[in-house]
């Protein structure tokens, strides 16, 4: 039944292209940055005669199928000089283009008299998609001076930061575990360093990052709310280059260069925090024994023996480690490796074959006498992906492919770490799953004004053995009884024997109608299905939360979203503006019973609860792309409510990721060739919070009394940051260039609530005045924080 759907779609695409019979020839090639040979993603290739064009794919490749003739073609990309070519096409031909970096123009923005092609905001069929401009990220203020794309992702319209100093974010009414984060196509299960102060993404190696929130193309799937697709640089294939940066909390080095000029290059970067280095100088002996650090390494090689084949191998390795007085320690890390092969079957058929291995693990250990233990857990994934793009004609670009992966979830093994430990070895049951997807999509220009992007994804998820599945007794509500746990029955499954198979058809659709050359309306619909669930009942996930597959205990989560938007560019595309509204219906959203115990619990399935959610909102976005002043502003109004049987007495409640108003502003002003200044401002309604409505006494304890969940709000959050970037004049003549960045975080020193908790009231000396009196206390993280970093490039 489902494969018929794909067949119909393919037939439709074929039928809608009767032109194929006519004689056609193809112009194709790669577009690169002259400076370092990096392929550029998303370059507009525009054919004047057709008043139409294409953009380069994520590997910098484009393909245009045309009738023979004379064409004027322009290649344009933000931040680069537009290149124009006049070409006489008689047979299929390859045209590789190198674009020159636009010289920083201080005098005046050159207004092109010709039609500019940088209006992707309006022209692009996709909506609800944000490009994270790494260049801007590097110039704007950053916490501890470390540029972080995830902090910028958190400022996009429709995105809500999970809290200050975290890497977690919520997209359009989804939880932090509903975002798929990809680095060179490999999934990252926990993107945080230092619990989110930094992210795993070292801004120096990032080439491109895109956030998809709606009308998500059919090649992506697996999460309900968003996809963050991050691509790293391939390495300079023209000359050997590098940089070193000394920052406030972390330092990093980057080396890149050709292995074989124009054909092969490498990139290697490493970053490490050094707070622990300072701890060695502490007068306190205990502090010297503390260990607190993170590091990450990105390594990549690529080899292009000819224009039809290209191979990439990229690896990311990162880890955080904490150890306190040799008594208690924990660490976690991601390791991913991606091997890709880009192959051109012919100038219109582009194939990308990917092999991915990803591992996320964490470990906790205690050396406390009699309770020594060591707890290890991990999640491993192996994937194979085949993505094919068929450039049918300038009016149709067909994408299709498949994806298969195997995952092993090991929620943990706890081992006694001494002979006299009270703990015994306990291994929690592993889970295994196969995951397959087949997809097909087509981007089609119907008329000069109307374009469509439509497709479908068939996802199949199979929870397989070895496994022992229990049938748990139910309570009066018909939900698994988590008070008196009774296993009624059990079924044992052998290795790779299917336990439960789920299949879903996920339609995806986007349409764009051009109102004028500078404005359009767009609409989209998508269905997303998520087969993995994060066992976390807090607002902020921590690396020690475990993932679990869909199984007889948990149904896949589903989301249907419709969105409608208006897009307009002003002043020759100097300003981009958009307003979008969305409505999302969530089914089988995973939540957990009140007071659920999810940690090291063999019977965790009795705590699972699933229900419905609704999320809707309006997002406004304005971006200035050109001139001395660049930046963006966003405003989001949104509402997210959940209705989960067995949670909050079955009463609808605000999700912990609900925020009513959020606005973010980011700006950078190039004052001179030496100085540029940046600023951020962020404002958000407070997080929902469960307020105590009274207190009572039990066995001498002074206990809070609660009514409904999340019915109160923490104070509003707002913060202003400044930065200044300085590039000495001498840089112009030297090979070694220096850069200075200064930032001030939280300029007006606001004490923003991270959380509020209650305790027995204490006086200023921390003593109890009256054991019966309670007080609430607000926890805030960062006061005004200056930071500096120095970078050297060669």
């Amino acid at each position: 039944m489902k494969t018929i759907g794909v067949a119909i779609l393919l037939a439709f695409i074929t039928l809608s292209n009767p032109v194929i019979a006519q004689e056609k020839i193809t112009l194709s090639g790669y577009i690169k940055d002259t400076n370092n040979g990096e392929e550029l993603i998303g370059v507009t290739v525009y054919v004047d005669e057709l008043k139409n064009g294409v953009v380069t794919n994520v590997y910098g490749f484009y393909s245009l199928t045309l009738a023979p003739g004379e064409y004027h073609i322009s290649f344009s990309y933000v931040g680069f000089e537009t290149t124009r070519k006049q070409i006489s096409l008689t047979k299929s031909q390859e045209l590789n283009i190198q674009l020159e970096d636009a010289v920083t123009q201080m005098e005046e923005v050159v207004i092109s008299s010709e039609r500019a092609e940088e209006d992707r905001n309006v022209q692009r069929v996709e909506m609800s998609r944000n490009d994270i401009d790494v260049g801007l990220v590097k110039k704007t203020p950053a916490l501890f001076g470390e540029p972080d794309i995830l902090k910028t992702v958190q400022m996009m319209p429709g995105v809500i930061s999970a809290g200050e100093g975290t890497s977690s974010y919520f997209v359009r009414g989804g939880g932090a575990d509903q975002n798929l984060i990809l680095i060179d196509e490999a999934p990252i299960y926990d993107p945080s360093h230092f619990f989110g102060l930094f992210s795993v993404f070292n801004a120096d190696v990032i080439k491109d990052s895109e956030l998809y929130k709606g009308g998500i193309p059919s090649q992506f799937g697996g999460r309900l709310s968003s996809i963050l697709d991050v691509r790293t640089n391939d390495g300079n294939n023209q000359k050997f280059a590098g940089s070193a940066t000394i920052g406030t909390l972390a330092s990093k080095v980057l080396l890149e260069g050709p292995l074989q000029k124009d054909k092969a290059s490498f990139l290697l970067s490493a970053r490490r925090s050094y707070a622990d280095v300072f701890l060695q100088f502490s007068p306190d002996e205990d502090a010297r024994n503390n260990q607190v650090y993170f590091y990450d390494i990105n390594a990549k090689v690529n080899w292009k023996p000819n224009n039809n084949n290209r191979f990439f191998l990229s690896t990311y390795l990162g880890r955080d480690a904490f150890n306190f007085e040799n008594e208690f320690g924990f660490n976690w890390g991601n390791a991913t490796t991606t091997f890709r092969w880009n192959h051109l079957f012919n100038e219109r058929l582009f194939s990308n074959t990917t092999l991915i291995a990803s591992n996320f693990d964490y470990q906790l250990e205690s050396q406390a006498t009699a309770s020594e233990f060591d707890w290890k857990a991990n999640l491993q994934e192996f994937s194979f992906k085949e993505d094919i793009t068929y450039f049918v004609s300038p009016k149709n670009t067909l994408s299709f492919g498949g994806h298969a992966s195997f995952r092993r979830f090991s929620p943990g093994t706890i081992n006694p770490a001494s002979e006299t430990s009270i703990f015994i070895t306990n291994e929690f049951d592993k889970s295994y799953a196969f995951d397959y997807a087949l997809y097909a999509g087509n981007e089609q220009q119907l008329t000069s004004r109307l374009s469509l992007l439509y497709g479908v994804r068939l996802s199949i998820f199979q929870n397989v053995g070895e496994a022992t599945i229990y049938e748990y007794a139910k309570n009066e509500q018909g939900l698994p009884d988590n008070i008196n746990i009774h296993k009624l029955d059990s079924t044992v499954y052998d290795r790779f024997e299917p336990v439960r198979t789920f299949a879903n058809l996920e339609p995806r659709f986007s349409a764009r109608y051009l109102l004028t050359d500078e404005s359009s309306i767009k609409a989209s619909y998508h269905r997303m299905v998520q087969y993995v669930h994060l066992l976390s009942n807090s607002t902020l996930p921590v690396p020690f939360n475990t993932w679990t597959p869909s199984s007889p205990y948990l149904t896949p989560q589903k989301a249907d979203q419709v969105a409608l938007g208006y897009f307009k560019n002003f002043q020759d595309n100097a300003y981009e503006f958009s307003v979008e509204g969305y409505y999302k219906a969530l089914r089988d959203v995973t939540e957990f019973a009140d007071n659920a115990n999810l940690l090291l619990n063999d019977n965790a399935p009795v705590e699972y609860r699933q229900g419905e959610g609704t999320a809707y909102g309006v997002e406004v976005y304005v971006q200035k792309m050109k001139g001395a002043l660049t930046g963006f502003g966003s405003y989001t109004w949104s509402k997210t409510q959940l209705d989960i049987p067995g949670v909050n007495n079955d009463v609808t409640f605000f999700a912990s990721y609900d925020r009513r108003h959020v606005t973010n502003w980011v700006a950078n002003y190039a004052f001179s060739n030496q100085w540029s200044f940046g600023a951020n401002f962020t404002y958000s309604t407070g997080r929902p919070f469960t307020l105590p409505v009274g207190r009572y006494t039990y066995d001498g304890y002074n206990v809070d009394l609660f009514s409904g969940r999340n019915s109160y709000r923490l104070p509003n959050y707002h913060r202003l940051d400044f930065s200044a970037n300085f590039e000495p004049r001498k840089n112009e003549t030297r090979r070694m260039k220096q850069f200075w960045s200064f930032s001030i975080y939280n300029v007006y020193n606001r004490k923003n609530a991270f959380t509020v908790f209650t305790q027995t009231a204490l006086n200023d000396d921390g003593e109890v005045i009256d054991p019966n009196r309670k007080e609430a206390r607000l926890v805030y993280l960062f006061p005004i924080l200056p930071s500096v970093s120095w970078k050297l490039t060669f």
Partner: protein
Amino acid sequence: MYKNYIFILLAASILWACEEPYELDVDQTPPQYIIDGLITDELTDHYIKISTSTDFYSEGKTPGVSGALVSVSDDQDHEYLFTESETEPGVYHSRFQGEIGRTYSMQVNLTSGETFTASDQMYQVQSVDSLTWEIDEKEQQDPEEEGFFYILRIFAQEPQETVDYYLFKFYRNDTLQNFDSETGLFYADDELIGGYIYGLEGPDYFRKGDVATFTMYRLSRQAYLFYNDLDNVLNGDGGMFGPSPTNPRTNIIGKDGPGFGLFQVSSVTRESIEVGE
């Protein structure tokens, strides 16, 4: 037990955090009845305390509820009537000795017409093999409080064939020790625990000459869950790293659903040692 480590971890993650008092904008809500009852296998005056909740910012003790009819019966048709204390309003006593294996049911009728019931079963607790004390040399060099550098170690067995739940209390000269905190709470299940508890450390430091007492109560699963949830309320972080706080699950049943508090039935074991001798 492992749970405590998670709190250390979370505390560590906000090492750089600061805090200050914050005024909650609390609503007035009608008071709720709270029941706090304990029956043990010791021959003693068992208590059932009835009180009401008050406003969050109210001062003073929460008010006791007088004039209630309170009784407990077991599954062998014994009934024990509880009488209200003359000195402490809302505290009801009855002297008897609980028996292992019995299920006890509580019946409370208030003058307001409200009624509450609850029941809980008494399971066998293990005895403690021994208690020892030991000098913490690091603490001895620089004690936080003069003379306090003795630690307590507990040796006990844990039956592996049954699923058991415990509540622990530590006393220094009859004063409850709570790890220097108003909200310290020690309870455990035996899911990850081996057959022998070999020198587990007690909370806080003792002084030479102190009498250290370790008490272990065997809990039912329902009572264990109550303490687990109570811990979430007392030591939660407002739902950032921890779960959103909710009222503890209880065995108290009122006319319109679950009540507040716990009717706990436990066998208990006690062991004392004079520190430094």
